[in-house]
C-alpha cells in the first residue's frame, strides 16, 4: 500500500525553533564583523574575498572590530563534511587567486578526455556523440574535501577566524534584522540533559551574516520560512554516495554512466547516473547520484553503488584496488525554480548550495558557490561602508551573472527525468540544443516527499557484502571517519511510529544505517512500525530532510572526517 512521506511531517517548526533574539548579556556576546555560516567553497570564498577587499578599506576594517570575519564550521575542520564528484570549472579559482597557477590548486588534473556510457547489466555502450552537458574539457578533477582544507588555510592566512567544531544552531534576529548566529550547546546527553561538562552555546553577533550552509541549509530553511523568501517551487534533492579507491592502473578519462543499475521504468523514478573520475595516477573516485523522489521503498543508493561495482566495465577499473574512502551527501536539484525568490534580507545573504545554485544536468555547483560568495563579499563591503545592512546589491550581482544565466538555461531539465530516462533524456537534449528555449514554461518541481512509496523489488538485486569489494553500510560509516559519541542527543526529527512502507524507505535510503525497524516487527509484518534511530551513525548527508523528516544540527565536531572525498 503506497504511502506519501509528506503525510507524516517531522515534529519540527524551524522558524520558531531556530530563530531567536540575542539572549547573552553584553559581556558574554562575541562580536565579529561578518559571520559566515559554513566553511565550504561559498563561505570560504566569501571570507577570503572579504579580507582581500578590506585591505583597501582601513576605515571599514576598524568598524568591523577585532574579528572582522569569522567562519562557523560544524565539522572538525573545513572540508571534513564536504563531498562532491567533482569536475570544477576554474573560473572562480582564477578570480579569487589571480596569482596562483592551477598547479598550486588542490586539484588532481585537468580533464582532457571524457566519455559517457550507457550501461545494461552486461555491457557498457559509449554514447556518441557525447551528450554535451557532460563535456568537461578545461575543468579540473577536484576533491571538494581537499578544496575545503585548502581554502580554509588560505582564509586563515588572510586573517579569517575559523571556528571549527562549532554548529550555528540558531539565527539571531531582532526587529526582522539578522544580527548573527548562536552556536550550539555542547555536552548534552541522549535525552538532551546537561552532562557534567555541559557548555552552552554563545551569541555571535555580527553586522552581516552570510548563510553558506550547503545542501543541508539548517538556518537557511528557517530563514526562508520566517522571512517568506521561498521560491516558486520547493527544493528537491539527489543523494550521492561515493567511494575513493586506490587502483593499480591509472584511469585515463572522466566517465559518466547512465542506465543500469537504475531502472528505466517511469514508475520507479530512478533518475540519475554514476561518475568515475581519475584522481591522479593512483586513485579513482566512483559515485552514484540518484534523485530522492524514488518510489520503491527498498531502493538504497549505497547498495545500488555496490551493485554498479559488479558490472564488468567497472570491475576492470577497480580490480586489484583498495577502498580508501566512502561518503554520502545530497545535492539540491530543483535548479532555477527552486531557488529562493529573494537571496537577501536585512543583515543576511544566502549563497551557494544553500540557495540551490547547482546545475544538475552539468553537475556543476562548486564554482557557482565560490562566485556567489565573492559577490556576497563585494556587496557586503559596499553596503557596510554606507552603514547599511541592505544587501539587495548582492542579489543584483547574482542576477547579472553566469549563475542566473546557466541555471535559467537548464531550468526544466531535471523535472522531466522523473517521467523516466527516455523521456527525460530527450527533453534534456532538446533544452541543451536550444539553449533553454525549448521546452519553455515552468515545469514544476514536486517535493520528493510527495511521491508515494511502496515496497517493491530493488533490494533483491543488491549484492551481498564481502567487505573486500562490496561493502555494507556500517563498514562504510567507519571509513568516513565518523566517531560520534554514543550518548549524543538525537538530532534527527521524524515521526517515530509510521507505516512500514515509510519506515522501510528511510531504512533503505539512509546510507549510514541510522534507521532500523525492530526485528520482531519485521517478522510479524505489522502495518505500523517503530523507527529506531542511531544518530551517532549519521554522516549528515541530508537525505532524511527530503523524505519526510528533518536533519537538525548535531554537536559541533560530530560527523564524518572526509579526507579526499
Amino acid at each position, binding site marked *: 500500500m503506497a504511502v506519501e512521506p509528506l503525510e507524516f511531517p517531522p515534529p519540527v517548526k524551524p522558524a520558531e525553533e531556530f530563530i531567536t533574539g540575542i539572549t547573552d548579556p553584553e559581556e*558574554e556576546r*562575541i562580536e565579529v564583523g561578518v559571520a559566515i555560516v559554513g566553511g565550504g567553497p561559498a563561505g570560504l570564498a566569501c571570507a577570503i574575498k572579504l579580507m582581500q577587499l578590506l585591505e583597501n578599506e582601513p576605515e571599514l576594517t576598524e568598524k568591523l572590530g577585532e*574579528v572582522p570575519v*569569522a567562519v562557523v564550521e560544524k565539522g*572538525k*575542520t573545513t572540508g571534513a563534511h564536504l563531498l562532491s564528484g567533482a569536475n570544477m570549472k576554474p573560473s572562480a579559482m582564477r578570480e579569487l587567486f589571480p596569482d596562483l597557477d592551477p598547479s598550486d590548486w588542490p586539484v588532481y588534473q585537468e580533464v582532457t578526455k571524457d566519455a559517457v556510457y550507457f550501461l545494461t547489466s552486461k555491457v557498457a555502450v559509449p554514447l556518441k556523440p557525447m551528450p554535451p552537458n557532460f563535456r568537461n574539457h578545461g575543468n579540473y578533477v577536484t576533491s571538494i574535501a581537499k578544496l575545503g582544507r585548502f581554502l580554509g588555510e588560505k582564509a586563515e592566512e588572510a586573517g579569517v*577566524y575559523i*571556528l571549527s567544531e*562549532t554548529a550555528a544552531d540558531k539565527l539571531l534576529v531582532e526587529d526582522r534584522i539578522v544580527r548573527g548566529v548562536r*552556536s550550539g550547546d*555542547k*555536552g548534552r546527553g541522549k535525552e538532551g540533559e546537561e*552532562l*557534567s*561538562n555541559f*557548555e552552552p*552555546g*554563545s551569541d*555571535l553577533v555580527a553586522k552581516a551574516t552570510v548563510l553558506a550552509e550547503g545542501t543541508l541549509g539548517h538556518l537557511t530553511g528557517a530563514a526562508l520560512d520566517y522571512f517568506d523568501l521561498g521560491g516558486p517551487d520547493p527544493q528537491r534533492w539527489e543523494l550521492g554516495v561515493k567511494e575513493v579507491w586506490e587502483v593499480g592502473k591509472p584511469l585515463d578519462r572522466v566517465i559518466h554512466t547512465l542506465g543500469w543499475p537504475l531502472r528505466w521504468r517511469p514508475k520507479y523514478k530512478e533518475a540519475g547516473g554514476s561518475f568515475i573520475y581519475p584522481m591522479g595516477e593512483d586513485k579513482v573516485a566512483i559515485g552514484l547520484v540518484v534523485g530522492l523522489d524514488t518510489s520503491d521503498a527498498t531502493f538504497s543508493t549505497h547498495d545500488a553503488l555496490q551493485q554498479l561495482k559488479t558490472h564488468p566495465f567497472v570491475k576492470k577499473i577497480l580490480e586489484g584496488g583498495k577502498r*580508501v574512502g566512502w561518503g554520502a551527501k545530497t545535492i539540491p536539484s530543483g535548479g532555477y525554480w527552486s531557488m529562493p525568490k529573494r537571496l537577501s534580507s536585512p543583515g543576511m545573504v544566502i549563497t551557494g548550495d544553500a540557495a540551490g545554485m547547482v546545475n544538475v544536468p552539468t553537475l556543476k555547483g562548486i564554482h557557482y558557490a565560490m562566485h556567489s560568495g565573492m559577490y556576497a563579499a563585494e556587496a557586503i563591503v559596499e553596503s557596510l561602508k554606507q552603514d547599511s545592512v541592505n544587501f539587495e546589491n548582492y542579489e543584483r550581482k547574482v542576477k547579472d551573472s553566469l549563475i542566473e544565466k546557466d541555471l535559467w538555461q537548464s531550468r526544466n531539465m531535471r523535472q522531466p527525468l522523473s517521467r523516466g530516462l527516455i523521456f527525460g533524456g530527450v527533453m534534456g537534449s532538446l533544452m541543451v540544443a536550444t539553449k533553454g528555449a525549448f521546452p519553455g514554461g515552468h515545469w514544476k518541481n514536486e517535493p520528493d516527499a510527495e511521491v508515494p512509496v511502496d515496497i517493491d523489488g530493488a533490494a533483491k538485486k543488491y549484492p551481498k557484502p564481502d567487505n573486500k569489494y562490496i561493502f555494507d553500510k556500517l563498514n562504510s560509516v567507519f571509513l568516513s*571517519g*565518523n*566517531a560520534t559519541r554514543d550518548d549524543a542527543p538525537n538530532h534527527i526529527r521524524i515521526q517515530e511510529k509510521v507505516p512500514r512502507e515509510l519506515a522501510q524507505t528511510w531504512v533503505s535510503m539512509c546510507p549510514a544505517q541510522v534507521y532500523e525497524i525492530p526485528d520482531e516487527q519485521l517478522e510479524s509484518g505489522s502495518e505500523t512500525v517503530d523507527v529506531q534511530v542511531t544518530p551517532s551513525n549519521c554522516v549528515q548527508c541530508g537525505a532524511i530532510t527530503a523524505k519526510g523528516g528533518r536533519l537538525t544540527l548535531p554537536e559541533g565536531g560530530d560527523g*564524518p*572526517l572526509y*579526507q579526499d572525498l
Partner: protein
Amino acid sequence: MKICVLVKEVPDAAVDKRIDPETKRLDRSGEKNLNPFDTHALEAAMQVKEGGSDVEEIVAVTMGPESAVRALHKAVALGADRSVHLSDDALAGSDVCATGYALARVLEAESPDLVLLGQQSDDGECYTIGAVVADHLKMPSLTQVIKMDVADAKLTCERQAEYGYDTVEVELPAVISVGDAINEPRYPSLKAIMGAKKKPLDTKAIGDVGIEADRVGEGGSRTAVLELKPPPEKEAGEIIEDEDTNETVEKIVAWLDERKLI
C-alpha cells in the same frame, strides 16, 4: 603553584595511520589533533585550580614541528594561561629516550610544581614518557592515575596496578600521568577558542633550553627501527554448524581444552 601540562599533537583518530616506508616514521601529513588523553590532563589541571589550590598559572608545553602550534591553541582554549613550543629540526626522529630528555630540559626551564600529561598518545603508544621525564627532573612520578586530590603540597592519587587499586601519597613537585577515567574534559567556550591565539606562546629551539644536539634526533636516539613487517597471518578459523547441540558443545569444549583455555 605552577602547573605544566605536556601536550602532543597526534594524527586524528579517524585518519588512516601509516608509516612512511622510507623514513620508517609515522606519516604525519593528514589531519592532526590534540592527543585526546592530554585533554584529561588539562582538565585535571583546571580542576586543581578551581578546587581552591593557589595556582598561579597553567602552562601548556609541547615538542613538535610547526603545526604543533594548533595543539597549543587548543590547550589554551581549554584553560592553559600560556604555552611553550619546543621546535627544532634536530629533534626529528627522537625516540622515547631522546624525547624524554628534551622535554625534561624544557620543563626544567619552567620550574613547575606539578607536571601533568596524558598516559599515552594515539601515535606513539608508549605509555611511559612521564616516568622518563620524572627521572631527569628528579621528581616522584606515578602513571595511570585515575583520581588525584591536592592538599598541602601533597597529592593523594589512585591508580590501578597489577594487583588492584593502589592509593599513593606523592609529595610535590611531581610528574603525574593521568588515565582517561580521571575526569570528563570540558568543552572550550567559543570565547576561549577565539582568544587562544592571543595568549603568549614562546617558541624555543634546543639551544634555548640547553638540549645537547647529540642526545636527540635520530642520531641521538638509543633505539632504531630496523624493519617493518605485516603482522603474522592469522590462520583461517574453523566453522561448525550446530546440528546436534550436545555434539557441538563437546567440540567446543575440546577446542577450548586444546588451547588450554579451561
